[in-house]
């Protein structure tokens, strides 16, 4: 009888095992994301914006650079101009589609570059601590001495306009905050018991970094980096607004907003359109990063 009881106890977990399916971390993230309709909608919106930017040459009804003196500053829905025309008579919809290319590029490329560089510095600084930490973080502190917009304006203002300079500027601006997030996360993880345990069992530094630290540091860094996409887009459009982005004939949301500012009294609605594009894109990226944050937070 005692044997039967022991057997049933031993057998019980095996029997109930199929019910409690063990999910991987990313499987759990996906399970949570699946029912987050706001995030899913925003992901769809971003895909739509990206596709419309990529396929702009096929989607745009007009040549975005063809100006027309006869059709300057037409209202929304004027004849074939779905979103009206700008101060040089160019079709707004076409320019908006082409402008998305620059803005999206400015949102994504600098963030990727900065995540790689900043994340690496942050993990190294956080894990090794002491002098290495001091060296890296104090250097970053010098960049933290500049508010992001100011640093961007400073570098961009000295380098001059242009798409390469703008990208370089944004990458430099985004490295320090990512580095700090990675450093904070790493130094928290570093002091946890499981890392101590790994060290006690004789794991090498490289193996601890890759198997224990990086996994735990990755979610905060990735979530943080995803919030930077919209910041990067807004910073880039701000630089373009100040005349530090692409040069004038090229379509860019920030630059369009800047050149249309004089027409605010003539066509307020048309003048506001590029800003709406920036706002919608940046809200979409913000909400997606919010959703990711919630989905990736195991505690929630």
């Amino acid at each position: 009888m005692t044997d039967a009881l022991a057997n049933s106890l031993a057998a019980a977990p095996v029997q109930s095992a199929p019910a409690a399916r063990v999910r991987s971390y990313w499987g759990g993230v996906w399970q949570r994301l699946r029912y987050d309709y706001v995030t899913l909608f925003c992901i769809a919106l971003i895909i739509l914006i990206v596709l419309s930017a990529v396929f702009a040459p096929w989607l745009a009804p007009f040549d975005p650079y063809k100006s027309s003196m006869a059709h300057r500053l037409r209202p929304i829905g004027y004849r074939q101009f779905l979103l009206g025309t700008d101060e040089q008579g160019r079709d707004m919809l076409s320019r908006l589609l082409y402008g998305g290319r620059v803005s999206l590029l400015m949102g994504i490329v600098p963030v990727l570059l900065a995540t790689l560089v900043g994340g690496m510095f942050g993990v190294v600084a956080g894990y090794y601590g002491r002098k290495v930490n001091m060296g890296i973080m104090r250097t970053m502190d010098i960049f933290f001495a500049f508010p992001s917009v100011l640093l961007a304006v400073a570098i961009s203002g000295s380098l001059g306009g242009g798409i390469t300079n703008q990208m370089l500027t944004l990458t430099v601006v985004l490295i320090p905050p990512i580095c700090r997030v990675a450093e904070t996360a790493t130094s928290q993880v570093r002091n946890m018991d499981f890392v101590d345990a790994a060290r006690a069992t004789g794991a090498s530094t490289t193996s601890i970094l890759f198997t224990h630290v990086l996994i735990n540091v990755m979610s905060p860094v990735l979530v943080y980096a995803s919030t930077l996409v919209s910041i990067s887009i807004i910073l880039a459009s701000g630089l373009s607004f100040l005349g530090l982005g692409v040069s004038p004939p090229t379509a860019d949301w920030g630059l369009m907003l800047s050149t249309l500012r004089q027409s605010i009294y003539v066509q307020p609605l048309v003048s506001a359109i590029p800003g709406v594009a920036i706002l919608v894109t940046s809200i979409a990226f913000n909400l997606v990063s919010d959703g990711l944050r919630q989905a990736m937070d195991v505690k929630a």
Partner: protein
Amino acid sequence: MWLYALRRIILTIPILFGVTVICFALVQIAPGDPIQNLLSPTASQADAERLRAAYGLDKPLPVQYVIWLGKVLVGDMGMSIANNTPVTGEVLRAFTNTIVIAMIAVVIAFILSTIFGVAAAYRSGGLVDKAITAVAVFGISVPTFWLGVILVIIFAVNLSWLPATGMGAGGSKGFDYLSWSDFRFAVMPIIALALPPLGIMTRTTRSSLSEILNQDFVQTLRAKGLSEFEVMVHAVRNIMPAAVAMLGLQLGYLIGGSVLVETVFTWPGTGYLLNKAILTRDIPLLQGTILVLATAFVLINLVVDLAQSLIDPRIKRS
């Protein structure tokens, strides 16, 4: 505590040096001969040579830096190209205009964000939470310069409640923040400045509060019979050090980020000065303004860190 304060102050000095290095480098990374960047285009060859000797631009870079730093330390940041006036005076005059509206904006944002954050975290996932989160996301996502333009359309063009731009007839001299006839010029810049930090601070307050509210000690507080309000006070006290740090950081961001808002409203602060410097490629003015703003930001952060260690005795840094 005092040891920490002293350490923190001493650590600020190398950062300030780093700031001067970056500001010095700005002239170097600008395309073209530095001397052309420092001079007006109409200057003669003799002027150029005189300035080259005065700045020691024929000497190696580290020597140039020391000469430049020596001048900066006694308050000489060169001459503005556009106006041919000393940069120092121009920047400091503009700085007053910037810091005042930035401080008003950040205090408004701090108070509102604490209220919003508490309201949102209290019933996490509720309707209030959703509405407040929506406002916060808008605040974070909206480009300030576009918001400025929209504010002008609504309040200046359509409603004629507020003046669109500038600081009024008197300019910054004798501008009285306490009288409405002057202050109304500052209202729209303050709103445009306050919204992004409001969004960011609401979001951080909400998320750190709801994290605190899930902790065991909150359950203990409820179990021992404290009212919901008293529990909230405990929770809010827990996030205050982080919130104060955020406040300082945001103030700094506003000072630096004012360039866009001040450009839209032609508010005669440092941001407007920066825009002028960029348009006219006035590198000495750009360099001087950025040096002053970055120094201010460093000092604000120092004060915040010291205040934070006063509020939260747990803070111990390696």
